[in-house]
């Protein structure tokens, strides 16, 4: 099978392999079974069977059930997408493409909408505290700040402070420790970034929702998602989630007249994210 649908499914199997490679804490038996299943699912005989996708969906859900309080959000997203492939499966490839695209669109609106709601409900996020901490701690944009000596020195001093604060002799006598006042400008960036993220995710959810009916909104949604993906690729090492999200975006292009360029950018960006995720595991 060398149809676009088959290659989309093979790309999904590759996402599953990245997921398994990056999930070290699950039992070896599960990891071997899941990886073997994802590789076998790429073969022409298994790729075109609905049961293959149900088995893979059950395997992903097992990872969630093994440790429900430790499972990351990309575990859940992968489960929903695998289940969507199985549920929408049809021998009529056109119909399957259309239905999988609709399921992916629904999930994208759901993920971005819920993520926006969670941010709006979190006081630590909305006042800028959380993203300011990430900026001070060097948890965002490492590839950039490590190349600017003044910024690197400032972040190193903040990291030292946070490390010392995290390891007191008695927590009752160490309830607060002021950050250096000279770094207060980071607070301004933190607040600006907070609103950029909330609005960005909210707009992506809205555009994908409108994109079901309006073609211009659909194209704008894809462009916004790709910008979000490119930003995330350089700002934070969340490559498994990013790879999954980009596959979902590419799947939405199936069964619709979407510019080929968008699909190519999804494949390119998704491949980079997947390779970086694997490189981080290997190196």
């Amino acid at each position, binding site marked *: 099978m060398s149809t676009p649908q088959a290659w989309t499914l093979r790309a999904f199997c590759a996402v599953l392999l990245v997921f398994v490679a990056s999930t070290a804490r699950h039992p070896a038996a599960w990891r071997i079974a899941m990886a073997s299943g994802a590789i076998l699912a790429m073969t022409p005989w298994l790729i075109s069977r609905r049961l293959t996708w149900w088995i893979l969906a059950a395997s992903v859900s097992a990872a969630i059930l093994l440790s429900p309080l430790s499972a990351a959000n990309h575990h859940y997203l992968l489960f929903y997408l695998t289940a969507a492939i199985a549920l929408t499966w049809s021998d009529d490839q056109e119909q399957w493409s259309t239905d999988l695209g609709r399921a992916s669109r629904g999930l994208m609106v759901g993920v971005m909408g819920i993520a926006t709601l969670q941010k709006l409900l979190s006081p630590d996020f909305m006042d800028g505290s959380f993203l300011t901490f990430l900026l001070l701690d060097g948890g965002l944009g490492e590839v950039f700040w490590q190349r600017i000596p003044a910024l690197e020195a400032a972040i190193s001093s903040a990291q030292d402070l946070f490390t010392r604060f995290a390891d007191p002799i008695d927590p009752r006598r160490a309830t607060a420790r*002021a950050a250096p006042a000279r770094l207060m400008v980071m607070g301004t960036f933190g607040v600006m970034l907070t609103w950029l993220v909330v609005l960005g995710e909210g707009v992506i959810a809205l555009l994908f929702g409108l994109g079901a009916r309006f073609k211009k909104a659909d194209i704008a949604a894809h462009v916004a998602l790709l910008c979000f993906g490119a930003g995330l690729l350089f700002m934070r090492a969340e490559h498994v989630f990013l790879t999954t999200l980009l596959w979902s975006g590419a799947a939405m292009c199936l069964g619709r007249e979407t510019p080929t360029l968008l699909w190519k950018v999804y494949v390119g960006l998704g491949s980079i994210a997947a390779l970086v995720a694997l490189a981080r595991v290997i190196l």
Partner: protein
Amino acid sequence: MMTDRYRRVRYLLPLVVMLVIASIQIARVHLYGQTRWRGGGFGMYTELHPNHIEIWVYRGDKPRQLDRAHIPFAPQPPLASCKDPDERLRELRALPTKASLDAFWADCLPDPTITRVELWRRRFDIERWAMVRSRVRSSEHAASRSAGDSQREEDAP
């Protein structure tokens, strides 16, 4: 017509399941203090990671941090000693309720000299421009645990 409805159910079902699970997670965050990062609610990056929850163990009035999820902390006794302690620590941090704390103490901290266990949460407060630490849970039930053990011994045939 029926076929169209069936198709719609099939492609909307994953979204419905996602919304149900996320609603449960959001309710648990607000009712039980579960972390937003876990439970399928897509609340990652909305607050500090649960690794910033500290577990403090007291012998008398002397505290010692049980574990820290970040290097270069070198854990010292007492250590969590139960089946899969790393997973138990992750679960306790993800759902830091009194019941979780008591269960963790009973299962993973057999040392009888421990008199109290506390959970503290670190966060950055932009208004104070400071890292702050506050106690979120504590358990001080050595006496009741002893009483419970005595009760179980009495109940035994």
